[in-house]
């Protein structure tokens, strides 16, 4: 039985999750589990193991999918507890290590001298991030694999042009100025420099050099494809030129998997032209002589020995081949075979090459992880895709090898199991210890059956490695494992147990080089500096990589990277394309936000809506509604209820039924408030005789309108339409509206809303969910004017009492002010700033400066929050109302920190949560508005100008404080809470914006 949990917006790196999956699989009651981020690639992996559930299918790349197969109902609870503990430990650890940067800018601000970017993020996001690193002048070390070959070529060419080094992709190992990067051994510093297109090849050679007493200061990984025809050894050539100039390097060693012929020859020409002796091993080649300046090796061990001898005294032996005695052992029967189970790919290749040559097995293969598969002899690279999809690499996780040990030992024909144990930073903390119980068990079993079974191993490591070379060797030897000092010797031992000797490697002559020499490329200052100083690394991905960097004197800054745009490739491409217009867009956005900053909203009058909105004064019965356009039939309950109430108020019908019939007959024209310079809260239903507040933005004379707040309880905006609701509307039309209008006329120039807002924000209002300070400040301004009016005392009292009782009265004035501000900013606006956010209960709609009146919509979310007694989320209507104009201009939930009390009311936590919300909202905005400074935010101004680029890039959508209407017409408000704008409308806006620049999202 499959159980699924999806943790929203909870990005974790894949290696941590693989280790977590292993831990969960050990839990009692768990048959199988998989914990992964919700990328498409991961969903495919789930599908392949029949774990892809419907819930998992819906997860986004930023969501953490937990799928567990278990027969017990309660297993998932245990799993979630375990996951929570694991992730909590991880976050505590990461926090104590250092405060991670959230963006490139932040990372470079923290580490301004950074010169290397170390990547260990999923390949699908890698290329664009690496391009950014190169653009910022950083050398790239890409542990990240699965980068397309085209991208590799492009990135390497770009790096070369900029004088930078692109190490990788799929570069597992590297040492820069003695600092181990990624999965690397701690090697004694020294006068040998290495460039390798093979991770474990570098590890084997550097560790043997160390154990022979030599040292390596730089081991530059190029990635396995560097010597391919397409790449043309771009990185290797630059690295060789750099090492040639590095004064302290005396000998240069090149390690390569089988290269493309042309590229090999080019590398050879360069090696011959260096001023320092070079050692080269092109795996698969069996050189018979050293040539000119280049000493050619057959095995990795030979390469290491040649390099050490050259580094020590400039002389080399004619051969380093040491034959093994095959006489003293009880040799295995002829039909017994050797099975190689390797965690290192290059070691597997070398073993396969030596075994095949000795036994004439017909050469290497490349299928399903097999490197050799002939006549029962097998060598498997357990780091191949087949064994690592959804599982950690065998250098970290012993489980695959343990399973394979058992399978191989089961096979009666297996005489020798040959394997490697790779030590170093990044590798398992005690791989030998993890493998030993199985080895002992299998040896005991074989012994009980009187069967000959041998384990032969080589340990790739040094005594400085965290696991300790000698310690590991002893552990294995004590358990009865044949231990050899190199991979080549381990193969020799395995074959000797079969009574076979490796094909003798003849003494090599020195022959002159006959080919061409080339001019050694000039190297850049950045490259010189890379080899002369400790690397200063921005670490993007696995935080554990920081440990070795810091321990060996490098500097590192953790960049807490998350997939851009929630991993949406289409959006990533658009954002990357828009990056090229960054300056232009930023300038356009500045113009828009400048208008918002300079806005001068004044409350000037309260008038019947039809007097200022001609559409409400036409022969066609017209109602305004909140949000983007929609028909009556599409409206949710509360908006429909409001329509009934408005019709009864306008006396277009005498009863609810008549009103409904009228509405269903399509006799009513519906127009979004926003189309006529108006806004309306919740349903936003506005009819001609309703009084509206008039706010003038004196920056350019733009006017905007909003109905007046009716108070709380049964009110039209929440969909109530009973007699008391209609009666109140009539009173507002006949008493409140005209009184306020007359009072406002008493004031010289209306009420300066900037002043009122600035004052009220310091008194704890955020102007969406809390307006009590602003309402009182408004009352303070208007009351003296009301008192002066020549109207009855009773009327004065009624109006003043209503205003005093209506805590949210100012909300509607704020909305009109917001509308007046954005409608001014929209005029002639360009760029990516959001100029409208609104909801109609079905769709959330936004507009942006560049595209004027065009709506970009997506289905609304349902608010989360606190419900009045007797109601639950089930009763809540989906998000509705134009009141999100407050958030559009930077108040409301954007300014949550100004009104921390509200966070409790809307169920969003305490002060720290309020702070976190405002900080998060600031991260998607262009800047801050100094006109409205928030004391509790260290006097920062309110958020200013939501930028759709930032929203799409971060996946952070604006948060909106909102009342919650009952989903049925006529019930009214049932709670209050917060709701997120849906990402899709911002993505649509971004695509449309990009199109204006000629960038096609397809």
């Amino acid at each position, binding site marked *: 039985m499959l159980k699924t949990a999806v943790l929203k917006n909870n990005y974790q790196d894949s290696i941590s999750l693989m280790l977590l999956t292993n831990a969960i699989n050990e839990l009692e009651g768990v048959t199988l589990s998989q914990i992964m981020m919700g990328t498409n690639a991961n969903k495919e992996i789930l599908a392949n193991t029949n774990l892809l559930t419907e819930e998992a299918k819906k997860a986004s790349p930023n969501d953490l999918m937990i799928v567990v197969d278990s027969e017990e109902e309660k297993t998932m609870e245990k799993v979630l507890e375990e996951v929570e503990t694991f992730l909590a430990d991880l976050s505590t650890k990461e926090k104590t290590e250092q405060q991670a940067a959230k963006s490139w800018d932040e990372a470079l601000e923290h580490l301004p001298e950074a010169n290397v970017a170390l990547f260990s993020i999923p390949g699908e996001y890698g290329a664009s991030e690496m391009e950014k690193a190169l653009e910022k002048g950083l050398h790239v070390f890409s542990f990240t694999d699965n980068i397309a070959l085209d991208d590799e070529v492009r990135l390497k060419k770009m790096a070369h042009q900029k004088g930078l080094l692109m190490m990788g992709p799929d570069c597992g190992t590297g040492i820069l100025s003695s600092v181990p990067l990624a999965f690397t051994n701690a090697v004694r*510093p020294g006068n040998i420099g290495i460039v390798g297109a093979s991770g474990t090849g570098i590890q084997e050679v550097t560790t043997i050099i160390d154990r022979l*007493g030599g040292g390596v200061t730089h081991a530059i990984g190029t990635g396995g494809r560097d010597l391919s025809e397409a790449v043309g050894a771009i990185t290797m050539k630059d690295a060789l030129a750099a090492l040639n100039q590095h004064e302290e390097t005396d000998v240069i060693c090149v390690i390569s998997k089988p290269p493309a012929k042309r590229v090999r020859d080019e590398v050879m020409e360069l090696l011959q032209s260096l001023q320092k002796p070079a050692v080269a091993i092109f795996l698969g080649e069996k050189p018979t002589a050293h040539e000119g300046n280049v000493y050619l090796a057959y095995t990795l061990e030979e390469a290491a020995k040649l390099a050490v001898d050259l580094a*020590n005294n*400039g002389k080399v032996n004619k051969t380093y081949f040491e034959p093994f005695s095959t006489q003293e052992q009880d040799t295995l029967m002829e039909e017994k075979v050797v099975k190689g189970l390797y965690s290192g790919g290059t070691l597997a290749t070398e073993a396969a090459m030596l075994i095949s040559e000795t036994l004439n097995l017909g050469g290497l293969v490349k299928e399903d992880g097999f490197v050799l598969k002939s006549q029962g002899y097998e060598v498997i690279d357990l780091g191949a895709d087949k064994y690592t999809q959804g599982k950690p690499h065998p250098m970290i996780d012993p489980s695959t090898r343990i399973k394979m040990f058992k399978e191989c030992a089961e096979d009666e024909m297996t005489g020798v199991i040959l394997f490697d144990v790779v030590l170093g930073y990044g590798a398992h903390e005690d791989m030998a210890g993890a493998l030993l119980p199985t080895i002992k068990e299998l040896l005991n079993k074989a012994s009980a059956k009187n069967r000959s079974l041998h384990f032969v191993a080589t340990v790739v490591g040094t005594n*400085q490695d965290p696991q300790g070379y000698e310690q590991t060797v002893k552990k294995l030897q004590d358990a009865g494992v044949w231990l050899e000092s190199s991979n080549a010797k381990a193969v020799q031992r395995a074959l000797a147990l079969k009574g076979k000797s490796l094909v003798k490697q003849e003494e090599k002559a020195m022959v002159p080089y006959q080919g061409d020499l080339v001019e050694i490329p000039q190297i850049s200052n950045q490259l010189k500096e890379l080899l002369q100083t400790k690397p200063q690394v921005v670490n993007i991905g696995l935080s554990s990589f920081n440990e070795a960097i810091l321990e060996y004197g490098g500097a590192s800054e953790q960049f807490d990277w998350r997939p851009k745009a929630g991993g949406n490739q289409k959006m990533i491409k658009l954002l990357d394309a828009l990056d090229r217009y960054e300056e232009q867009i930023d300038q356009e956005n500045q113009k828009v936000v400048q208008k918002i900053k300079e806005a001068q909203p004044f409350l000037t009058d309260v008038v019947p809506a039809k007097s200022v909105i001609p559409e409400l004064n036409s022969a066609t019965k017209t109602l305004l509604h909140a949000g983007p356009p929609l028909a009556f039939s599409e409206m949710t309950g509360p908006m429909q209820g409001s329509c009934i109430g408005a019709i009864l108020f306008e006396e277009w019908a005498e009863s609810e039924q008549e009103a409904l019939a009228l509405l269903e007959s399509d006799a009513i024209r519906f127009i979004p408030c926003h189309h006529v310079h108006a806004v309306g809260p919740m349903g936003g239903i506005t009819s001609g005789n309703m009084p509206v507040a008039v706010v003038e933005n004196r920056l350019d004379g733009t006017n905007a309108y909003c109905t007046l707040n009716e108070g709380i309880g049964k009110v039209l905006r929440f969909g109530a339409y009973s007699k008391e609701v209609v009666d109140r509307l009539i009173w507002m039309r006949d008493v409140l509206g005209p009184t306020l209008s007359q009072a406002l006329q008493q004031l010289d120039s209306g009420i300066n809303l900037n002043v009122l807002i600035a004052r009220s924000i310091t008194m704890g209002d955020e102007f969406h969910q809390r307006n009590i300070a602003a309402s009182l400040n408004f009352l303070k301004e208007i009351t003296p004017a009301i008192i002066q009016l020549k109207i009855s005392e009773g009327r004065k009292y009624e109006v003043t009492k209503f205003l005093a009782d209506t805590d949210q009265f100012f909300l509607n004035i704020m909305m009109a002010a917001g509308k007046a501000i954005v409608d001014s900013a929209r005029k002639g606006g360009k760029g990516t700033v959001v100029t409208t956010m609104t909801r109609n209960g079905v769709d959330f709609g936004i507009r942006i400066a560049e595209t004027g009146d065009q709506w970009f919509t997506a289905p609304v979310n349902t608010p989360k929050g606190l419900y009045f007694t007797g109601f639950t989320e089930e009763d809540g209507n989906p998000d509705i109302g134009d009141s999100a104009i407050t958030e559009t201009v930077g108040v409301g939930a954007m300014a949550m920190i100004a009104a921390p009390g509200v966070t409790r009311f809307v169920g969003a936590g305490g002060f720290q949560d309020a702070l976190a919300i405002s900080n998060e909202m600031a991260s998607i905005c262009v800047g801050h508005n100094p006109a409205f400074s928030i004391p509790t935010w260290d006097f920062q101004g309110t958020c200013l100008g939501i930028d759709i680029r930032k929203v799409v890039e971060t996946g952070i959508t604006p948060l909106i404080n909102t009342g919650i209407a009952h989903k049925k017409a006529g019930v009214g408000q049932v709670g209050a809470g917060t709701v997120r704008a849906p990402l899709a409308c911002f993505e649509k806006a971004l695509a449309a914006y990009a199109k204006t620049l000629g960038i096609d999202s397809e």
Partner: protein
Amino acid sequence: MTRIVSDYIWPLEKVGRTGHIHSMFSRSFNIQVDQQLIHVSSYPNYLSGFGLHIEVDELQEILSKIAIGNLVKIQSDQLVFYTVAGTYHLSLKNLAVQSLSLPKLSLSLDQIDALLFQMEDYTLTGKMGLAFTPQVQAECQMLVETKTLTAAEISRMLHFFIGRGSGLTPSGDDLLLAYLVTLMALSQQRGTMLKEALKKMPLNTTDVSRAYLNAACFGVVSSPIQQFFESLQTFVSLTEIKKAYERILQIGHTSGKDMGYGIYLALKYYQSKEKE
């Protein structure tokens, strides 16, 4: 002292082209090159027979960077230290080369008597690193009183002293080394016999002590010992000789006392032999 090197290891390239940091102390360190140590120090009045003296600041900077096992490249004009902190270049230009060879001594019995009379004041047996057990006492007595030692007796005696005691240079080694070089300086046949025996046997002791013994076999000693023998050579005043002797006694924690006692034993042997 400026920058000085013992001629025993000069030029350094003859020792080898690469070495490793062998051991580190607060004011010195050793580089191992094949079987030879190079002792790099900044002691104001001490240069090892296989030593290189450099400035204090230079030494401290190197000590702050290096670690045991670090590679050292030896070139004609510099040493290059490959450390985790980076490479460090120590220039070998303008070095003063100093001979630390043993001078030849020719002392009269009166001089020996006077010397021994002074030395007995120091009552070294209670201050040495080597516990003065009856067995040690017997061995020391044999060094003085036995006029002729067979090859077997020499071998047994060497095995008894070499590696005996604790410390970087075991007390037995210190005693033996001083005994040996004093006899060599006095051109005693026993000195030659001991030296040849030492050259042939595996020295089961610390690397540092072995380096001192090896140098001694080649007639090379540390500067305080050389200075002491030079004071004996001129024999200008007993006060000067005592001062030089005391400088030896001050070496290390107990090494100096062990060596002082070794010198005393050799002189006693020489005295009794000469008196015959």
